[in-house]
């Protein structure tokens, strides 16, 4: 399929998300759309997929102008999309998800399950997409869920596949497998539009590259013409230093000590499996791993948000196992949660209120059960300056802030009280480069001030740049603790469960799976997020 986007413009209020964007993708081509978070890539794809209507501009398929009122129109024209957040119904089976909206039926609208299974099996063999049609999607690891998403497009005979940040949740090895699938799709004549902000991937897979910044196309190139540094400069608009400036850690006494920690997830399956880990004052331990291998649950157990089944959590020698979140907080644990909008902020409330969300009942912000709103406001204004939060007023609802500034509100709040331990989960997810640099700087500063820092991240770049040591989690276990100088390939293997080779590390034999305490199939639950 030949696809052209001509002069696409889309504004949300005063914000122009896409400004006269042109893009063309030919048959059999792998085209990468590169841009940092907030550059307007997803908006453009939503326009293309009929989820959002453009203010002006035209979409042409094989030279013919088309109009997509909804995703159904796009699908009928042969355009399929794998969304960044998978669009799968968790309680449906794989087969149900794949055929949804395109169901083979018999008389009276009865589902023809046999035909659906046959078709799925045929396609999954053709493209090496291994899935079990009868499995429930919510029981599948993310990699498999992604294969389901791809099959969803293929079963509709999509000639063009849009992949929106598909590697965010994959190990390097899984990414490599995905690239193989992409190449086989391209060689079958299908076009692939690959959206990402990861430079290495672009160079590895693209035939052609289009770079976006602030809603505009700022460059068109190919991997042969441009290197990593060129692409980065194009994407951000200035030269980017891709490393975090920090001195070697001066680790002090142990602050956080986990001993034989076991935690279950929402479904009662073992998510953290006998984990022992120490984080010392003045060091940053980065917890790496593919999302859904128990890192989230581990962070939640430390901050008191999740029940600890067995084992212990100690903070500076004091036992805080199964302390309430409030207790953990008062004991000096700061928490930057993974999903800031869901767990970190009350979007409808003001910036000032969000800045005191965990100290609202403490002096000076309250006395005898009455809040001192003047102090809350003054404190908020001070923090706006200190943390460079761009908001026109502390009375504005925090929802009116950009993602980067929202995260700064969370960070500002957590770092504004005396803390011994900072737990930060995916602290830079979805942020632009400027905000990422800022958040990293603050975390290093906190380390240098003598706090222990535990960073949970599924971004390998971040893990390697930030960590003084790297702990890799796989299926609820820590498969090794290695220095950040370890090669990406090595850590990638560990993330996929392969044992770490260096003798110094706490290695665990791989391949044996996880002895699950609940008796449920091992790993089937802890894989997923």
């Amino acid at each position, binding site marked *: 399929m030949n696809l052209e986007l001509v002069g696409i413009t889309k504004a949300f209020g005063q914000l122009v998300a896409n400004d006269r964007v042109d893009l063309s993708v030919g048959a059999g081509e792998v085209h990468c759309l590169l841009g940092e978070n907030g550059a307007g890539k997803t908006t453009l794809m939503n326009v293309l997929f009929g989820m959002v209507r453009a203010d002006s501009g035209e979409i042409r398929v094989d030279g013919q102008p088309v109009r997509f009122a909804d995703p159904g129109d796009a699908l009928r024209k042969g355009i399929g999309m794998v969304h960044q957040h998978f669009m799968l119904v968790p309680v449906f089976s794989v087969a149900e998800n794949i055929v949804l909206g395109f169901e083979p039926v018999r008389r009276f609208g009865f589902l023809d399950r046999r035909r659906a299974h046959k078709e799925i099996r045929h396609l999954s063999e053709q493209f090496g997409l291994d899935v079990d049609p009868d499995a429930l999607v919510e029981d599948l690891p993310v990699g498999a869920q992604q294969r389901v998403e791809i099959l969803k497009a293929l079963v509709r005979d999509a000639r063009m596949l849009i992949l929106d940040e598909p590697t965010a949740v994959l190990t390097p090895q899984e990414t490599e497998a995905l690239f193989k699938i992409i190449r086989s799709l391209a060689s079958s004549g299908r076009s692939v539009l690959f959206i990402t902000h990861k430079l290495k991937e672009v160079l590895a897979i693209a035939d052609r590259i289009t770079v976006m910044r602030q809603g505009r196309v700022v460059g068109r190139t190919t991997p042969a013409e441009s290197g990593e540094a060129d692409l980065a400069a194009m994407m951000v608009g200035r030269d980017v230093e891709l490393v975090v400036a920090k001195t070697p850690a001066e680790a002090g006494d142990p602050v956080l000590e986990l001993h034989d920690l076991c935690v279950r997830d929402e479904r009662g399956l073992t998510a953290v499996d006998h984990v022992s880990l120490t984080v010392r004052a003045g060091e940053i331990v980065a917890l790496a791993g593919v999302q859904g291998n128990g890192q989230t649950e581990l962070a939640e157990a430390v901050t008191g948000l999740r029940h600890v089944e067995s084992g212990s959590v100690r903070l500076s020698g004091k036992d805080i196992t199964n302390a309430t979140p409030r207790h953990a907080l008062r004991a000096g644990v700061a928490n930057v949660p993974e999903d800031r909008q869901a767990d970190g902020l009350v979007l409808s409330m003001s910036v000032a209120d969000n800045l005191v969300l965990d100290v609202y009942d403490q002096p000076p912000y309250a006395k005898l059960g*009455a809040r001192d709103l003047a102090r809350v406001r003054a404190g908020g204004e001070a923090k706006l300056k200190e943390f460079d939060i761009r908001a026109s007023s502390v009375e504005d609802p925090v929802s009116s802030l950009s993602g980067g500034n929202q995260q700064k509100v969370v960070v500002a709040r957590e770092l504004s009280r005396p803390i011994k331990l900072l737990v930060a989960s995916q602290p830079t997810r979805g942020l632009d480069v400027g905000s990422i640099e800022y958040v990293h700087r603050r975390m290093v500063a906190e380390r240098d001030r003598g706090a222990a820092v535990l960073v949970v991240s599924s971004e390998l770049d971040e893990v390697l740049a930030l960590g003084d040591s790297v702990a890799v989690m796989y299926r609820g276990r820590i498969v090794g603790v290695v220095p950040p100088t370890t090669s990406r390939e090595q850590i990638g293997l560990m993330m996929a469960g392969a044992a770490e080779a260096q003798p110094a590390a706490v290695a665990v034999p791989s391949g044996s799976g996880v002895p699950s305490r609940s008796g449920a199939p091992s790993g089937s639950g802890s894989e997923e997020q």
Partner: protein
Amino acid sequence: MTTATAPPEEPLSGEANRAAQEPRPWWLGALRWMVEANVAVVTFCAIVFGLFVGAILIVVTTPATLTAWGHIASAPGHSLSVIFSTLGNAFGALFTGSIFSPSAVGHAISTGNGWNTAFTPISETMVSATPLIFAGTGVAIGFSTGVFNIGGQGQLIAGALAATYVGFGVHLPIVPHLILVVLAGAAGGAVAGFIPGILKARTGAHEVIVTIMLNYVFLNLLDYLLVTPPLQQPGQSNAISRTVPASARLPHLFGGGLRVNAGFLIALGVAAAASWFMKRSTLGFEFKVIGSNPSAGRTAGMDARLASVLVLTISGALVGLAGMSTLSGTDFFLSSGYGGNNGFNAITVALLGRNKPIGVVFGSLLFAALSTGGRYLQATTNIPLDLTQVIQAVIVFLVATPALVREIFRLREAGAGKILLFTKGWGS
């Protein structure tokens, strides 16, 4: 959807602020204000539309107008005059019955007598508003925490029952006795609110179902107690309770048979206290956070389960005061089905008042006026009182969907016309 796009560095409200600072004749601003969908205009339009629906109902169901419709072709003038006079009489009665009657006022001015008669309607409106203010405030506090208390009827009965027992069972001078009665009313309602609260926290039972079911439980419990000593009036076979003594009755504010009593002042005080509570207290803040985003509250160290117990208990206590206020203020004894629609109307009042105690006070006065006027309407024109409940429902439909009001009345968009979302799904 992912936020692929960042809002501009300068948020929009800054723009609006600058616009607001531009000099502009005040009347132009006032005119603009009147045609945009702000809270006041939307509420006003909702009330107008509600009354309009009421008028239609009268026109299509009253025998006189129905007959007139039959002659609309042959004698259109006469038919129309019948229809309009019926409507005029009806709305006149609504007004006369709830605010004041011009003729009675005129009589009072000219003769210097009969002021009581002139003030009776407004006094009755205040009397009817009293329980609504208590109960509406209680429901509003629940909504602010994302808890939907439909158990007003049951909690009201519980409060009234407790107040009655303390009323006739304790013998004290009036001041301590009344204090005790008021506290008992609150305690009774609190117990009735605590039940769904603890069930929600401990077992996850959704408060909407539990509170509704408890209404029927308390109605039946009341029926039982009314025919059982010591509550039953001795020597009576009817289901009627003992009467509370004078020391357990809320004093009238003005003499001369006007029934408006100290309960109204207590209600205003409670509304003011609730307003402070929601705006300035740490617990109120915690409630609001948990109501808007429970998981953020939990992450910040708040206890959402405890909050749902507390909020339902407090909410129940306030609704219990509503039962106390009618018992000690005007009724003095209990009968089957006590409290009538007050428990349910508390919800509509809370919605009309947009969850703010001050709004609840005005909403209560409005709905109280509708119902006292409605009683007068029923007495004078035979149009059933239930008409006012229909009008109230229509008003709340519109208040809950400001966008619809904007379309019906072609108002300009304004920030205040946001949709009210208070409740949570079954799972939470």
